[in-house]
């Protein structure tokens, strides 16, 4: 391979980052980004051969978009999306004294306040239990020797079933006040000390995540080219929990819009998909997926069907995955423990690097990243402080640094690596195959692995969000510079043009360009009423979590299709053309205007000249700017229509309308029901309702009043509802002809869930909403793999606000297993059918968390394994027809519990609760 024989002169001074007068920072590559376009002076006289090369624009043209913003490609998912946390939710909202000395204070007080108000039961429950023996709460007389028992009956009477906690202005009796004064300090300290610390920790974690969400590094949108050049597949996560991996066939055409072919193939996983990597090596297309604690690989068959290869469990959490561009089926995976492994489904795992400490200097981040290099046996291992080249065959601690956050690259203080990507190209003529892209929060560096530590190029990207996505594209024309796409999490897109064949150092061939983001599409949508407008706006502002560009085959002029995936699960696309620069009369005529007489042709530009002293915002409209054409508007309108049909997300939290006081007085048989109700509600992730907890204890009706008339319906109704029979009264009023509506809707929801159980299936995009009682597909019934996967998905996660999913998962992990078997058919879930086979009652279900062999694909809690990256053939190869393995599932399937005879079906097992439920923050 050629090495550029004339490198740009630069100082090389090792040192810590942020040396304000590091001489490197004065040099052209570092100091002035735009001046970088200057070529380094060659060792031949520049006056002999002045570099009057045609600029990029005149030589190659300009990338232009069809529409001012990306257009929706797929219809919005059936799940509502609640927008992310913002800094406003987390930070103290007082006025700052010095608004520019950035000061972030996490608002724990407000959160704690809310929590105590909403979940007093949880906060004070344990203490209450401890003190319970010393208080008499109205039970039959209890007294124990040597113990003071206080009578709290009067206190409870004062409370009278009210919940003063929901109302700050509630009346307080003297007794209550006295009690709160005496007990307040004790109760408060307890809560503050234990809860406050935890809450602060949690909020701080959230705040860090908001500032830098490293989970989505690399992006979760991939493109797999098909056997025919004009057909391919988009691979992306869908669903509220991002746990559904979709393979959508797409037909490309040289001139018209891309078309989604049929419905996507869906695979339900047991964890959110964070990163999708696709690669075709020697005609073998592979898709690698990273979840929080698992990595998995699929092979795409020639017909385009995904075939699972292997799953890898990572106890400490996975941070990065990449596929080898050289050898089919070879991957590099990184774990939070600091381990980097080479992984191939055939040969298993090989640890090539393990160091809990960071490479260059100490940094608290446990983020690790690995990618391949031009040598198939060398890997780059990156963390926040540096990138190292490591030989797979050598000992793990050898290897040299490729990049270091320091003075060599004139890094700033506090600069950290956010992305390290190998930019290997298949055509070495266009760009050297030894280049690596390194992005920090400030700049972008290009490094050649043959000349470590000295960046070949540096550009300050000035993105206001972490640049976590990058893709290098083939040259649009032979010899033309290569477009490099850079995407920030906030949706900002940049396109750079890299030139310099294998014998020249890489350079920017043209000033970088910004591309429209999803937010720019807003004007393409019809104006809605404020509520809808806000919904749309939030949706379009969702973080960018995936980016992939595809070059359609046989285009008359160079074209690329840019697909974008947002955190709301929306896939948008945009078509970019490299148009010859005929329209830019602007540039050409102006260039001439210095010397020639072109002025008369351009009155508009002349006027600019005169008014240039005055800033005018709408000056110089880009002549080539695209406008919204009717087809684009119609496309947006269609998408919006579907979006507005999606039911709204539930409000993230409303205080419960029941009091735990009722739980205490329940009889033992009722308690079981309550627990089941609780569990059912949690499983479905919905709000706990009064109906779930059984009838209210009979309380005295309010004093009767004079009836308003002979047929006082209002009074009747009030009375009925006071006794908890409001619904029955309503039914009787309706003549009993209608099935209670509530029940109907519940049924509907349940069948939706059950219909989405099958793992590998193809249904229409919206069948989750429309096609209820659809029969399970044949694949669903026959395939062992799909059956095992069936259990692996967690439907409850779909309707739970994202911020509470983890808590719920933690909670459910300690619960006895759900009886998933009873869900496999929609009928068994029908709440009205209560004749369940009772013969199987005796069979005991296998708790999922206790059997390591039932560890399935992407489970939230992998079984405890000693190594950070374990590869357990039993637990991972769930796709192989392992008889022992499937039998475990059968035993789980067949164990159907008897259901209580309430309206709400309970899917819970009979084991007692192990832990107090903690809903909340």
């Amino acid at each position, binding site marked *: *391979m050629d*090495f*550029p*024989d*004339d490198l740009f002169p*630069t*100082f*090389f*001074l090792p040192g810590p980052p942020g040396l304000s*007068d*590091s*001489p490197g920072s004065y040099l052209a590559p570092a*100091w*002035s*980004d*735009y*001046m970088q376009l200057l070529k380094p*002076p060659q060792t031949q*006289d520049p*006056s002999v051969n*002045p*570099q009057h090369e045609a600029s990029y624009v005149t030589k190659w043209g300009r990338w232009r978009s069809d529409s001012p913003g990306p257009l929706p490609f797929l219809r919005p998912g059936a799940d509502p999306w609640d927008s992310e946390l*913002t*800094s*406003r939710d987390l930070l103290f*909202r007082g*006025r*700052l004294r*010095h*608004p*520019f*000395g*950035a*000061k*972030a204070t996490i608002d724990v007080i407000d959160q704690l306040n809310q929590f105590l108000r909403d979940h007093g039961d949880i906060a004070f429950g344990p203490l209450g239990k401890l003190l319970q023996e010393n208080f008499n709460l109205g039970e039959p007389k209890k007294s124990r020797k040597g113990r003071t028992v206080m009578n709290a009956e009067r206190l409870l009477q004062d409370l009278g079933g009210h919940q003063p906690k929901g109302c700050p202005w509630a009346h307080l009796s003297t007794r209550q006040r006295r009690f709160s004064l005496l007990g307040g300090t004790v109760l408060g300290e307890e809560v503050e000390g234990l809860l406050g610390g935890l809450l602060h920790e949690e909020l701080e974690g959230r705040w*860090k995540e908001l*500032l830098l969400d490293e989970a989505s590094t690399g992006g979760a949108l991939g493109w797999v080219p098909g056997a025919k050049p004009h057909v391919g597949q988009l691979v992306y996560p869908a669903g509220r929990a991002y746990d559904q991996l979709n393979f959508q066939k797409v037909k490309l055409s040289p001139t018209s819009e891309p078309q989604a072919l049929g419905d996507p193939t869906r695979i339900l996983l047991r964890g959110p998909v964070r990163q999708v990597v696709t690669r075709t090596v020697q005609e073998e297309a592979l898709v690698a997926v990273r979840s929080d604690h698992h990595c998995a690989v699929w092979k795409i068959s020639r017909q385009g069907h995904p075939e699972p290869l292997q799953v890898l469990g990572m106890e400490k959490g996975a941070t990065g995955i990449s596929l080898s*561009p050289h050898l089919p089926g070879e991957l590099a995976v990184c774990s939070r423990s600091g381990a980097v492994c080479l992984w191939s489904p055939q040969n298993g795992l090989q640890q090539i690097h393990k160091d809990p400490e960071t490479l260059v200097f100490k*940094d608290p*981040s446990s983020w690790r990243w690995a990618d391949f290099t*031009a*040598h*198939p046996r060398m890997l780059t291992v990156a963390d*926040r402080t540096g990138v190292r080249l490591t030989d797979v065959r050598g000992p793990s601690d050898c290897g040299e640094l490729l990049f270091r956050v320091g003075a060599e690259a004139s890094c*700033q203080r*506090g600069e950290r690596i956010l992305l390290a990507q190998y930019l290997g190209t298949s055509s*070495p003529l266009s760009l050297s*195959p030894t280049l690596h892209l390194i992005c920090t*929060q400030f700049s972008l560096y290009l490094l050649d692995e*043959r*000349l470590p*530590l000295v960046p070949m190029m540096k550009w300050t990207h000035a993105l*206001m969000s972490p640049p976590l996505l990058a893709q290098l594209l083939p040259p649009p024309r032979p010899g033309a510079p290569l477009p490099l796409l850079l995407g920030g999490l906030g949706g900002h897109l*940049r396109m750079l043009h890299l030139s310099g064949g*294998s014998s020249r150092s890489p350079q920017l061939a043209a*000033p970088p360009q910004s591309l429209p983001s999803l937010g720019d599409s807003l004007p393409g949508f019809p104006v809605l009423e404020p509520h809808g407008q806000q919904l749309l706006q939030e949706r379009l502002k969702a973080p960018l979590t995936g980016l992939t560009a595809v070059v359609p085959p046989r285009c008359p002029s160079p074209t690329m299709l840019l697909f974008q995936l947002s955190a709301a699960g929306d896939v948008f696309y945009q078509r970019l053309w490299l148009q010859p620069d005929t329209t830019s009369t602007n540039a050409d005529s102006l260039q001439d205007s*210095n010397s020639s007489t072109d002025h008369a042709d351009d009155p508009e530009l002349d006027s600019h000249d005169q008014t240039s002293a005055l*800033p005018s*915002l709408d*000056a110089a409209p880009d002549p080539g700017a695209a406008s919204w054409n009717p087809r684009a508007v119609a496309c947006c309108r269609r998408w919006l229509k579907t979006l507005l049909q999606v039911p709204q997300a539930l409000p993230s939290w409303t205080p419960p309308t029941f009091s735990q006081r009722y739980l205490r007085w329940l009889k033992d048989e009722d308690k079981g029901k309550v627990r089941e109700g609780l569990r059912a509600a949690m499983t479905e992730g919905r709000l706990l309702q009064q109906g779930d907890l059984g009838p209210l204890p009979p309380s005295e009706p309010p004093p009767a009043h004079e009836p308003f008339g002979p047929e006082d319906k209002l009074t009747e109704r009030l009375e009925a509802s006071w006794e908890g029979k409001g619904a029955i009264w309503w039914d009787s009023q309706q003549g009993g002809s209608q099935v209670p509506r509530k029940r109907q809707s519940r049924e509907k929801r349940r069948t939706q869930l059950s219909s989405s159980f099958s793992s590998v299936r193809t249904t229409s995009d919206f069948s989750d909403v429309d096609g209820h009682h659809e029969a399970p597909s044949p694949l669903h019934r026959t395939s062992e793999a799909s059956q095992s996967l069936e259990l692996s998905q967690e439907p409850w996660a779909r309707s739970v606000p994202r911020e509470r999913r983890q808590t719920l998962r933690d909670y459910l992990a300690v619960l006895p297993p759900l009886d998933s078997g009873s869900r496999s058919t929609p009928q068994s879930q029908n709440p009205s059918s209560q004749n369940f086979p009772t013969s199987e009652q005796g069979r005991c279900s296998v708790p999922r968390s206790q059997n390591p062999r039932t560890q399935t694909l992407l489970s939230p809690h992998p079984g405890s394994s000693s190594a950070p990256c374990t590869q357990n053939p039993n637990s991972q190869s769930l796709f192989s027809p392992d008889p022992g393995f499937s039998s475990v599932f059968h035993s789980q399937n067949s164990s159907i519990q008897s259901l209580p005879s309430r309206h709400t079906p309970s899917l819970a097992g009979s084991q007692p609760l192990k832990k107090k439920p903690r809903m909340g923050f």
Partner: protein
Amino acid sequence: MDAFSEELMRSVEEDDQEKASVGCGPEIHLPWLSQHIQNTVSHGHKGINFAQTTSICLNFIQEALLKHQWQQASEFLQCYFQALEDFNSQKRQVALQNIWKLGSAILYHHPKSSVETFSAFADRMKNIGVQNYLKISLQHALYLLHKGMVEEAYRNLNQAESWRYGEMSASQEKLIKLIQAYRGLLDYYTWSKKRTELSKFDMDGFATSAATQDMHSYFRQASVNLHEIIKIPGVWDPFVKSYVEMLEFYGDQDGARQVLTDYAYDNNFPSNPNAHVYLYKFLKKEKAPEDKLISVLKILHQIVPSHKIMLEFHMLLRKSKKEEHHKLGLEVLFAVLDFSGCIENITAWRYFAKYLKQIMMEKHLDWVQEGWSSRKDWWPTFHFSYYLAKKNWKENKILALEKAFTSGILLGKGCKYFMYVSKQGHKVQEKSIKTMKKFVMKHNILDSKEL
């Protein structure tokens, strides 16, 4: 008073920055942090202060630049000048640098801008802040060089070099050296022009000696400056090249060799492959002994095993009389073919096939096995897969034949690649395939192992 209040402001700011780093957890500095805080704070109240308008304006300029709307950007830049009125001296400095950075970018691309405009802007900016003088001068000179205006650039560099303002900081001293080095480079350009003139025209004695004198003075000017910069660690390819060329011309071979050796072997310098290549080329021109050349390339082989000069290195080793060099020659080829960029390098494959044949004949099987042992688990898929056999046969039959031969030796006659190519080749080149097959039957490392 002013200085005092600035001091006060700075201390306040530093305090706040510390707090910010506590609040956001890790010590990582995120540029979007202040935006998040602004969002929280400014929600609901409308007043926009000076600093906010300035940063909004900066954003507008950057956006316009990214959309290549140079005119618009220049108009926004006029509004940005208010940033120079900031109370905080540090912020004023940053604003100054921003104005230079953005302004030069706009003027570089603006269709209406000319060299004169750019120069006027640069001259203006140079004199605003003391700290920026040298940097802007250098950038300005580079710009002029890019436009082919060497004399202007030279004058500029000269001016910058003679500039003095109080005591210079260490970095400014280095920068001055860099400026001098660029000036030296320009002197070298003149020198080399004069040299070609001198060689082209036959002049009488007097004119020749005058011209030689003139040339020599350029050499002296250039060499002083270039010599200085080369001592500082860095990547100085153009400087080293031109300096060595001049030294060579005046017959100072030892000096030139010393410069190149220092440039290649000084540990403070980055491991620049070019430094070794320059040294090798110099020694080769000097007709240095082969051992010397081999030792230079040996180091380059360790740093960049994929360098194209490695094929030359291989030939050198092959010609050598030492057996260890012959062994290294094989290892060099193995290493070259490891790289994805050299997969289809037909020369490398031809050398490899030929050399393998030679080695097998010489019965140095252990060498092949040694090189093969670390590659046997991945070379078959990397080089000799069925897919590649089909592809290579379709695209380049000669390459396919070379590869098939090596695959036969390394993997035996049962290898997919070998089988495919020999089957396909049988129809076309029956004779050569037959000889190849015969050789592979006799010599391959698989069968030899069994023996």
